[in-house]
């Protein structure tokens, strides 16, 4: 009996603490400064750890960290320079050299494959999972690491799981209740309140620290918000600062319950799996949504898949054909505190969430950018690329023309044809071409 009573008391006190310190302030959008304190301590600890590691390493030979330096030094000369041989410019036996060298270089290191694995860190952040290249330094560091493990798994993880649980239940219950009300401005305001509160709770559940920049460009009603995609948490981060209408497929299970509850309170756009294939239907429904100026802005991730937050890949043109104003948003996570990238081929949703909840924190920057619209004579693909460049520049990410779908599918043959065209021009091209090169 005593054991059960004691356990009951502990749970009771625990819940009251959680309620008092976290839930109520979230409801009012007030911060008690506990997270800030935690972050300060964390930053100091990691700085100390970095210094210790550097001291330890400098004793031996300097190991160039493999994160910033690639495996090979590439020769980025264009095809014309790489192929110029002994004679003029007819086909030669040696032309295969250029293509085979390029091919081997791609096998050793290519721009795309590395984007589908987590970013390598410059200095270790005391998480076992990121310990790829780092050495054993000193007992003090090991002790700090052990302490870190205890704190993360025994203190933070239960707290975060509790919060996440509370957050999601509140969301489902709250939206269902609000959904019962008739359409009115009161309903909209209440649904916003419910959404915001739950998102704030969930963000606390991840120890998230988010900095919003340029809040004056926050997406307005009747527009489309476009952002780079790193993980499902992106949605959470954006909705903490404003309400959006989500677009996506109807899932089963827990996600399905959440989706159905949310759509009662405010109009999201959920598609059945079969409907997603019909692009015209999708475009039509989205157009109808943004035509109604009272509806919330749509949130879309045009990359279509999660990338590891070091680069921005091809934006699919579908979202840019709808019309309307595009509000670009750049999201950049700080990998030092926790890796937010969801490698869906390696981890399923549950193990991903566990990894996130046992990291130190999720720290990210969100930049709102001035709205963009399609210009005269610009087609959807060019517009998509323009927006992509803007987001990449703002977030400090590199820009890649490749399709994120390369994670799963093969590349289109049109790219190979382009190379073949270039080569053909060289060997069969007219005499004027040869004289230019000489």
């Amino acid at each position, binding site marked *: 009996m005593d054991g059960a009573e004691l356990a009951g008391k502990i749970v009771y006190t625990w819940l009251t603490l959680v309620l008092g310190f976290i839930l109520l302030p979230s409801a009012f959008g007030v911060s008690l400064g506990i997270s800030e304190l935690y972050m300060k301590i964390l930053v100091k600890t990691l700085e100390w750890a970095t210094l210790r590691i550097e001291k330890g390493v400098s004793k031996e030979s300097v190991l160039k960290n493999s994160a910033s330096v690639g495996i090979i030094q590439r020769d980025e000369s264009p095809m014309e320079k790489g192929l110029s041989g002994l004679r003029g410019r*007819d086909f030669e036996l040696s032309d295969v*050299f250029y293509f085979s060298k390029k091919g081997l270089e791609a096998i050793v290191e290519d721009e795309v494959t590395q984007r589908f694995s987590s970013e390598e860190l410059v200095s270790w952040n005391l998480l076992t999972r990121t310990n790829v290249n780092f050495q054993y330094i000193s007992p003090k560091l090991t002790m700090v690491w052990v302490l870190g493990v205890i704190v993360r798994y025994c203190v933070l993880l239960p707290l975060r799981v509790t919060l996440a649980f509370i957050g999601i239940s509140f969301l489902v219950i709250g939206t269902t209740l609000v959904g019962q009300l008739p359409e009115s401005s009161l309903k909209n305001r209440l649904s916003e309140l419910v959404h915001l509160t739950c998102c704030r709770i969930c963000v606390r559940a991840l120890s998230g620290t988010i900095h919003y920049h340029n809040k004056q460009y926050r997406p307005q009603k009747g527009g489309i918000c476009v952002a780079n995609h790193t993980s499902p948490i992106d949605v959470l981060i954006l909705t903490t600062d404003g309400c959006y209408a989500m677009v996506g497929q109807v899932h089963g299970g827990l996600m399905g319950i959440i989706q159905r509850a949310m759509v009662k309170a405010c109009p999201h756009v959920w598609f059945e799996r079969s409907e997603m294939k019909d692009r015209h239907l999708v475009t039509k429904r989205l157009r109808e949504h943004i035509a109604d100026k009272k509806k919330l802005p749509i949130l879309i991730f045009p990359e279509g898949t999660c990338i590891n937050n070091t680069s921005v890949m091809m934006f699919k043109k579908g979202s840019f054909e709808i019309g309307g104003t595009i509000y670009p948003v750049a999201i950049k996570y700080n990998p030092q505190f926790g890796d937010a990238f969801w490698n869906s081929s390696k981890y399923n949703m549950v193990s991903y969430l566990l990894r996130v909840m046992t990291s130190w924190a999720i720290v990210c920057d969100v930049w709102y950018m001035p709205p963009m619209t399609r210009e005269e004579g610009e087609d959807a693909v060019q517009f998509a690329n323009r927006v992509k460049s803007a987001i990449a520049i703002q977030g400090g990410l590199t820009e890649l023309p490749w399709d994120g779908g390369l994670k799963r599918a093969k590349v289109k043959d049109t790219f190979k044809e382009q190379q073949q065209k270039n080569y053909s021009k060289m060997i*069969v091209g007219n005499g004027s071409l040869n004289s230019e090169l000489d």
Partner: protein
Amino acid sequence: MGSRSSHAARIPDVDSIQRETGFSQASLLRLYHRFRALDRNDKGYLSRVDLQQIGALAVNPLGDRIIDSFFPDGSLQLDFPGFVRVLARFRPVDDGDHGNRDPKEPEPLNSRMNKLRFAFQLYDLDRDGKISRHEMLQVLRLMVGVQVTEEQLESIADRTVQEADEDGDGAVSFLEFAKSLEKMNIEQKMSIRFLK
């Protein structure tokens, strides 16, 4: 948390691979990570599909031939030593090799001759030691796609075979191939600069 050498020890037979290929331990470690990254389902070996999924390789006109060179004799699995052996051919030539090489030891993988052999194999599909006119045409067709007519391609193939063919058998043997390229800076064109 272990020391760096324990990471290199994860690679099986690392010492014999090092001797055979001449890569430094650091390079081998990085190549091992790359091998693991390409191995999508953690099979422990690479299949053709794993290599075909590299975007930059798939758009290379000779992509399929290059992949073939990794899977000799119809094998379907590429292990790490095999992977590194092919890459070793593209290592820059070390100047120190020429002087004190023991003639009984096999030629280093990245010698000029071995680089030429790699290129020769891209042409010689049936491995009979000669590049026939037909094989020449096939490679040309891969490199130009549909952009060039059959007649133009045939005339290019004919001209190339004629120029290189010395004994008049209508095909280019390996020695004729090497001779026609003797002035070419193979060492530079067929080398990838691996960073230390």
